[in-house]
């Protein structure tokens, strides 16, 4: 075998390091697939609660997992993957909402009535409930940002106050005080709107 053939064969050869890389890559992909099947629905609900648009929420979930794919090397270092993922998608949806400044889809009562569960309710009851929920969500949108964020995250049963604090990057006591203020403000807004009717 001549020297050139040997060099060519050397180029064609798959080195051990690349085999190790491929093995690691497959492991990363499997881990990522497991994360998707485990947390995609949770992330979607978090995204939907802010964006209130199914297509935008799904885009946000995809973007969150693409970010995870880019940082898959540091996946093993993450202590609580669920909170980490929720934090990623939370930042994405807040950024999107800030940039888009569009009217949420659920301002439309009809759309809200379509989305919300309506088992065993008459058409009138569905319409009335949708109107009520739309009104409440409009009041939530009037809250200050910090209070609104805590109130929205507290609606998720999966998240306790420590995890909410971790998602928002604040202390647990701040979460509690903001939640207290948010509830009071919310009650005031609802009372005010009720007195105007």
């Amino acid at each position, binding site marked *: 075998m001549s020297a050139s053939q040997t060099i060519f064969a050397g180029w064609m050869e798959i080195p051990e390091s690349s085999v190790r890389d491929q093995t690691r890559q497959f492991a990363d992909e499997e881990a990522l697939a497991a994360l998707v*099947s485990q947390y995609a629905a949770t992330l*979607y609900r978090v995204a939907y609660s802010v964006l209130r648009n199914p297509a935008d929420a799904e885009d946000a979930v*995809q973007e969150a997992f693409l970010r995870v794919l880019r940082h898959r090397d540091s996946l093993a270092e993450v202590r609580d993957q669920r909170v980490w993922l929720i934090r990623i998608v939370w930042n994405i949806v807040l950024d999107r909402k800030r940039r888009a400044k569009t009217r949420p889809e659920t301002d439309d009562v009809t759309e809200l009535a379509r989305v919300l569960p309506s088992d065993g309710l008459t058409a009138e009851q569905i319409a009335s409930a949708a109107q009520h929920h739309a009104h409440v969500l409009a009041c939530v949108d009037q809250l200050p940002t910090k209070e609104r964020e805590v109130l929205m995250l507290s609606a998720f049963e999966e998240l306790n106050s420590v995890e909410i604090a971790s998602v928002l990057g604040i202390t647990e006591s701040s979460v509690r005080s903001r939640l207290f203020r948010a*509830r009071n403000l919310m009650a005031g807004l*609802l009372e005010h709107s009720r007195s105007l009717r």
Partner: protein
Amino acid sequence: MNPSTSNQSSNRSGNTAASDAAESTLRLVASLSAPDGLEERVQAALKSAPRAGQILAWPTLARPVSGWGRAAAAAAICFVVAGGGWGVVARLQPGQAGSAKGPGLASPAGLSSSGAMRTPQTLHRPVVPAAVANPVIATAQSAQPVHHRNKPSAAGKVVAQSIPGEAK
């Protein structure tokens, strides 16, 4: 029970009821189910995402076995680059024959006039048009000798011009 205390408690219960209503709505929104096929779509998006670039491996023969091989390769590259640079610099030494030289100024004080003299622009002198003579006087004058002043015209021809003051 104190009336103010009962008012406060009723307000508090009203606040609690209102905030409960709000939270129940938020909980309802938060508990909405994800659309069908979400996971598959996310998986497909992840598979179609661009991967990071891979570095080519060294060929078997040229693969550096130790750090010395890498150091030797780096030294060879440095030698070639420095030698090439030195060759260019050595060829372009200032004052050497054949070296590139920039154009110098013709006069150290600045640009010269190349011996040209400046001549001012001159105007043609005014030419008085010929006076229309009286036919009677003209016939009288024709009998007498007339002084003519010959002068060249602009075209170079000799023009006879009568001077009114000299007619008498």
